């Protein structure tokens, strides 16, 4: 199995560490109910076919990569940097060793006529 690192190019599988389902990149809100944490930590779609998971280019450039691949054929269908994924990371900040939600700034009301 060879995985295409978006930065380094196509590399041997052994350069990468596997973390798990891409759901790991979507951590629940800090105050989420236990069921949400159970969903995040434990429950998996576990598809026989196309899946997305997180790999770390451990022996290479140290990038976290979201890999789209087939669990039956081992075909690699696509890769992108986790940093370029539309993640929730800007909503949280690590403080004192814990992940805290960033409180939204008090924003001025949008001017009229800009509704999408």
């Amino acid at each position, binding site marked *: 199995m060879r995985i295409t690192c978006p930065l380094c190019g196509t590399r041997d599988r052994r350069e990468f560490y596997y973390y*798990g389902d891409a759901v790991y990149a979507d951590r629940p809100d800090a105050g989420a109910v236990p069921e949400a944490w159970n969903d995040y930590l434990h*429950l998996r779609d*576990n598809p026989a076919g196309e*899946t997305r998971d997180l790999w770390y280019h451990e022996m290479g450039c140290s990038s976290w990569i979201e890999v789209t691949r087939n669990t039956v054929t081992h075909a690699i269908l696509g890769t992108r940097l986790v940093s370029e994924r539309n993640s929730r990371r800007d909503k949280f900040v690590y403080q004192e060793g814990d992940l805290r939600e960033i409180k939204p700034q008090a924003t001025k009301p949008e001017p009229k006529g800009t509704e999408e």
Partner: protein
Amino acid sequence: MRYSGFKVIAEGLGGNKGWKPAWRDPDPKPEYDIIIIGGGGHGLSTAYYLAKNHGLTNIAVLEKGYLGGGNVGRNTTIVRANYFLPGNQEFYSHSLKLWEGLESELNYNVMHSQRGLINLFHSDGQRDAFARRGNAMINQGDDAELLDREGVRRLLPYLDFEQTRFPIYGGLLHRRGGSARHDAVAWGYARGADRRGVDLIQNCEVTGIDIQDGRVTGVQTTRGAIRAKKVGIIVAGRSGQVAAMAGMRLPVESHILQAFVTEGLKPVIDHVVSFGMGHFYISQSDKGGLVFGGDLDFYASYAARGNLPMVEHVMEAGMTLMPMIGKAKVLRSWGGIMDMTPDGSPIIDRTHIDGLFIDCGWNYGGFKAVPASGWCMAHLMATGESHEVARRFRLDRFVTGHLLDEEGTGSQHNLH
């Protein structure tokens, strides 16, 4: 079909034309009391104990391929009861006791060989951990002996005692551990269940689970719809897909585990030897082949075959531990699909759907559990109550926090 030495000789002289199938090949009936999805070791033993222990015989086992064609036919056959945590301990202890009586129970030679299992340790900290594990095993009523370096050398003189990366400090010997003939276990249970009236239906893939008003009513299959009052899902690596037919998501990720066997050699490895630090374990089959394996390939997969880096890793670990095997030629390698849970322990429980039960999450330790898993799953399906030794294998333990994390590696499926 009864077997004897005389019969083998007579058939050998007669061209082996007199053998008959060991079980029937029935067509599915329109309705059963109980349907077991999955004709592997666990499914067959569940059907057997439903019939034997609970007197229920209107049962069908539905198998999409052939009986015993899944993980029970492609594992490394280790049987042991060396668990540490309450919850696992009593279960595997019970399973080992069932193994010890299995051949007379089934009147079938499963070649159960209690040749002793040795887990090596390589540091003071590991020795402490193994001493504690050994004490836990003894408290459970099983056997354990802590060997020092010389004790290991007496039993396993062929190990490399000079290597410096993982110096051998000693080992935990579990004398009642050993191995068995993997296929024979499935066949023995199949024959036993068939004789008690269970329909073993092969080439019958379940394609849907019928649910009405929160209650299971039957299954859809490639051989038509079959009604049932109770359905048990016992499909190992395919658990996620079958559970999805009932709208469930499981705490299971399917991973690949490889194993290897060499050409037949004269007897040289008398025990099952486990080298945890190198992710390597080995035993010698009765045919003489060295049977060995390592860790998961580490990524979610249904491919039933692995990748070369893990092959290399396993070979490296083997050569580190016992360089004498270096000239042995590997004949075969294969991969099995492991139903990995986030704590490394199994699930035997009812589901939120009335009449639907699930037995899964055996990670890569399902073979030794075949008797007790069937015993407990049968108890659950027949009585509606969890069996005493399997009461902690709950489906909801991941929400409630009652995890059984034997290795202490946390909630990442592939780390167990």
